């Protein structure tokens, strides 16, 4: 795993942001030099994660995941602001500007995606309804929630060592540990007994993974 840039917020144990994050994020809204590439990588990662999180929030009727979506949406605004600044500073010629315009367009699209995710979680304000789960049930890749049993071999192992994704095709979107959440866990994130995982993948993959996490299966293959 490559070393992540200093400002990335993924894979880090964090308390579910409540009212506090709004102030913190905006006080941070000042210019800091970061490479355009790092900014765009994070924006692309958020744009993919945030949709899964938004659908999980409405499907599982979970306010905390919805809060994280709102948090990421604000973060995306800041990243989009930073990337515009960096792109303007980098342009020297007309050719530069043309190429950089393409980057800004992709960044803008990533931000639109996060806005769509923000709209999805607003549905929580009404009641979530069975009609939602019926729609989600039709997909090849579905979202699931599963708790890790203390008897599972997964306990105290790193996600990367378990090769969860390449063995089962299940992608771990978030981990809930007590009061804390880890969103988009990295390969060096350790799984602990009683963690709740939100995962995305096929039903077959989920069957294997849930047996393993419940301690009914000794190895993942």
């Amino acid at each position, binding site marked *: 795993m*490559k070393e992540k840039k200093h400002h990335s917020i*993924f894979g880090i144990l964090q308390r579910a942001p409540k009212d506090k994050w709004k102030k913190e994020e905006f006080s941070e809204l000042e210019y800091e030099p970061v490479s*355009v*590439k*790092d900014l*765009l*990588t994070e924006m*692309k*990662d958020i*744009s*993919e994660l945030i*949709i899964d999180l*938004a659908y999980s929030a409405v499907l599982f009727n979970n306010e905390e995941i919805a809060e994280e979506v709102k948090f990421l949406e604000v973060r995306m605004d800041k990243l989009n602001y930073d990337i515009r600044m960096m792109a303007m500073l980098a342009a020297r010629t007309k050719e530069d500007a*043309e*190429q*950089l*315009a*393409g*980057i800004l*367009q*992709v960044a*803008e*699209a*990533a931000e*639109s*995606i996060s*806005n*769509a*995710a923000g*709209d*999805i979680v*607003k*549905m929580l304000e*009404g*009641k979530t*309804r069975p*009609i*939602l789960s*019926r*729609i989600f049930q*039709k*997909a*090849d*890749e579905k979202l699931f929630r599963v708790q890790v049993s203390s008897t599972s071999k997964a306990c105290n192992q790193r996600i990367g060592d378990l*090769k969860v*994704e*390449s*063995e*089962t*095709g*299940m*992608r771990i979107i978030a981990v809930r540990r007590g009061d804390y959440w880890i969103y*988009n866990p*990295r390969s060096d994130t350790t799984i602990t007994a009683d963690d709740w995982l939100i995962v995305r*993948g*096929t039903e*077959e*993959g989920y069957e*294997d993974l849930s047996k393993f996490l419940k301690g009914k299966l000794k190895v993942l293959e």
Partner: protein
Amino acid sequence: MKKDKAESLVFEIKDKSELMIDLAYSSLIYDNRIIAEEVYDLENLIDELYQDLQRETLEEVKNRKLLVDDALTLMKLAQAGEQIADAAQEIADVVLRDVELHPVLKDSIRESDIVFTRVQVDEKSILCGKTLGELKLASETGMMVIAMRHGNRWLYGPTGKTRIDPGDVLFARGPEDGEKHLIELARGETREI
């Protein structure tokens, strides 16, 4: 008329819009205009589906087949899917422009957690002649096939019934260690799934 037509339309919009994002990002990595054009076509399709859905939902409410709250849920989900589809089109638009892509675009997507990969299936490969459903590629290797090229024909969002033939080019999305496994399988370097 089918009982849950509105529901099926929303599902299709949701499913296609997610596929479009994957296709859009992979069109950037491979600087591939054909995939980018497909994103454009899918966007038109989603616009049509969205219009059908609006009419269908209203009809179903009028005929008391659908509750108002459920109808709103469907419309909001579809609207989000439509927004996501528009964003994917914006990304594809960058590829279709006559400006060389900035190298940072490729690099930043490559460095991401999820990789996109492209591989041609060799005739020695055990993938040949089998369907995606039989192979269970997604659950066994973690790689989800998002598009395939069969000769001059393209197939986007293949299903479990899609068969892989020698010479097919697979475009897939997944984790880094899954990428290696899929490439070895497709080239016939390993026979173990």
